């Protein structure tokens, strides 16, 4: 490869490093009160907005997983992840680009029941969009859809004509494409030190 090509590659790489995009932070922690604050102030201090956050238990008892989505540069995401690893009750933090994970969000939509009584348009809409009806009450119906943000937003747009009473979407949850087992990983982390 010629030298100019090398230079070009390096500058492209650098550019990619400086480009803002989605990063998914996956953080394994103790399940302790106050920890959420300890983690989120790291973003506050750097004026990084948290686009989405989810905290849940893992298959390992007492261990929680935070999934945090931010818009930032690669460089900044990596610095933040290193800082998060320093929080005392954090086991480890990973950083992933969107193509390194499988991820989903879940959305709920509340629409008036009568919208569904006038013909079967709305029902069609639910079926054709990979959504399902969660509950039917006298006054309202709750529809549930799992998907990526643009998909759940699409359905929202389509439901709007029927009068959406309420819409809510969960934080993103994600799994990496690795075959690592959480408990073994934690064990290894411990043994290594």
């Amino acid at each position, binding site marked *: 490869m010629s030298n100019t090509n090398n230079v070009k590659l390096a500058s492209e790489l650098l550019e990619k490093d400086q480009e803002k995009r989605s990063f998914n932070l996956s953080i394994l*922690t*103790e399940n302790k009160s*106050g920890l959420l*604050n*300890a983690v989120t*102030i790291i973003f506050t*201090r750097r004026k990084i907005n948290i686009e989405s956050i989810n905290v849940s238990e893992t298959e390992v008892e007492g261990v929680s997983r935070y999934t945090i989505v931010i818009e930032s540069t690669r460089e900044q995401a*990596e*610095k933040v992840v*290193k*800082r998060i*690893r*320093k929080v*005392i*009750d*954090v*086991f480890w933090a990973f950083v992933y680009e969107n193509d390194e994970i499988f991820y989903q969000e879940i959305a709920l939509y509340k629409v008036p029941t009568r919208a569904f009584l006038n013909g079967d348009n709305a029902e069609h809409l639910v079926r054709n969009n990979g959504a399902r009806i969660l509950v039917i009450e006298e006054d309202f119906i709750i529809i549930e859809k799992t998907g990526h943000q643009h998909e759940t937003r699409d359905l929202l747009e389509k439901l709007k004509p029927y009068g959406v009473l309420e819409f809510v979407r969960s934080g993103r949850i994600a799994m990496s494409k690795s075959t690592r087992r959480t408990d073994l990983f934690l064990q290894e*982390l*411990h043994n*290594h*030190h």
Partner: protein
Amino acid sequence: METLVNGKETITQKKTMPGAEAVICSLLAEGVDTIFGYPGGAIMPIYDALYSYQDRIEHILVRHEQGAVHAAQGFARVRNEVGVVFATSGPGATNLITGIADAQIDSTPLVCITGQVTSGLLGTDAFQETDVIGISMPVTKWNYQITDAREIPEILAKAFYIAKSGRPGPVLVDITKDAQFASMEYAYQKCTEIRTYHPIPVIKQDKLKKAAALINEAKRPFLLVGQGVLIAQAQEVLKDLIEKAHIPSAWTILGLSALDNDHPLNMGMLGMHGNYAPNVLTNECDVLIAVGMRFDDRVTGDLSKYARQAKVIHIEIDSSEIDKNVKAHVPVIGDAKQVLEALLPLVKENDHQPWLDRFHELHQIEEEKIINNDLYPQSKGIRMGEVVRHISEATKGEAIVVTDVGQHQMVTSRYYGFKSPHSSVTSGGLGTMGFALPAAMGAKVGKPDRPVVAIIGDGGFQMTLQELGTIFQYNIPVKIVILNNSFLGMVRQWQQLFFERRYSFTELKNPDFTAIARGFSIESQKVGEREQLPQAIAQMLSHPGAYLLEVTVEKEENVFPMVPSGAAVADIRME
């Protein structure tokens, strides 16, 4: 109560006692002999328990909680141990914050214990309730609120372990009043492990080999000494390494005193007001070896023009510092002493005399243009540098020197000839004016056998001068030198250089500092003539108690060299 010491673990037999007493017993189990603090409603049970233990633990009643933290910092820095602070809830706790932030950025181990309102009142805006956990979270290494007395020994054990291990830092433990009163079964076990926390990283052999190879091939190696060297007690092996491989070395302000000043490979201070040669040659070295330092912007200036030509070896215990500011070609993550010990046999004996001569050449220029005039001025007014030179000579470089923040701090760091490690105490990262007086007090309590000299500006002295009361009450024989230029000197210098001499609110109308000292029964003297200096300093040092020496210095002296903020290190200004 019987204390059994069994190897590294201290286990005490169970005994029923109130939580407050358990706090004191836990401190004793950690070997604490000194507490700096200030009482109030929410911490009264702990103070009451302390009353019965006065024969085994000394408590120093400061005059303001900020003074307590700075004193504990001074104590911690000279002893390389954890400093301990007590304060009450609400304003007591908030008064700690500046000092805690200072300790955090300068990696100083502290355990701060604050009283808190009864747990049932949490969140009710009860009298003197403040969310100190929330407030202190960004500036502590760890914090925790105890609402159950049974947690006290375990949490305090954890607090000491976290504060001291790895990269040290301040920890805050907030204890509600009901937990202090409640009865519990006390037993103490030292903390030696936390499953999510790995303070001493395992050194990677491949990195070590790469680092050694780079050092061995280097023609112009240059080593930067940070505070990590002092914290790890690595100063001896550092010396062995630089002598063996013949590497010129310079230090950050917090690395000061790790290498004695007259060591032939000591090339001086880095950064904004550092020496000429090490700043300029940062941009000429081929291998830059940074040990226990974090490439603060005051050290690097413009990062895009910092050591771009060099291969960087970064030896650092905190992996989040790697690539944070300066990209490391070879990061070696680990304790500085362990890394240097492992590196020493891998590096070859070497000779870099021509490269060293470059440093000497440039130093010659600095000497002619700046240093001579700072140390032996011809001008009428006294310059800060000559005062520091006299103090350095009179103490033979063997004092612990504590500085505040500003011009006098830079001048002292440049000109005091330190001979032994852990002897410089200053607020580097936060630049906290008001630090020196209480920190000097803490340093003297920590090392009563060594002379402690505080060098302070007239501005900074007035931020914490209430601690003269503490010095008076406990007879703490610190020597206080006020370099009085009737200005907030460092800010005035910037106004002169970068704001067209618009001296906006930097001139001070000062009190008679000697009269203030007299008010606290502290011996004092004021001098303004060059000829008086040696005698006045000798008198101060030979006086058995505390002493305040006010020196009237030139009003508009400037500190040079200077890397203007945002400029490249190589563009260091000589005037």
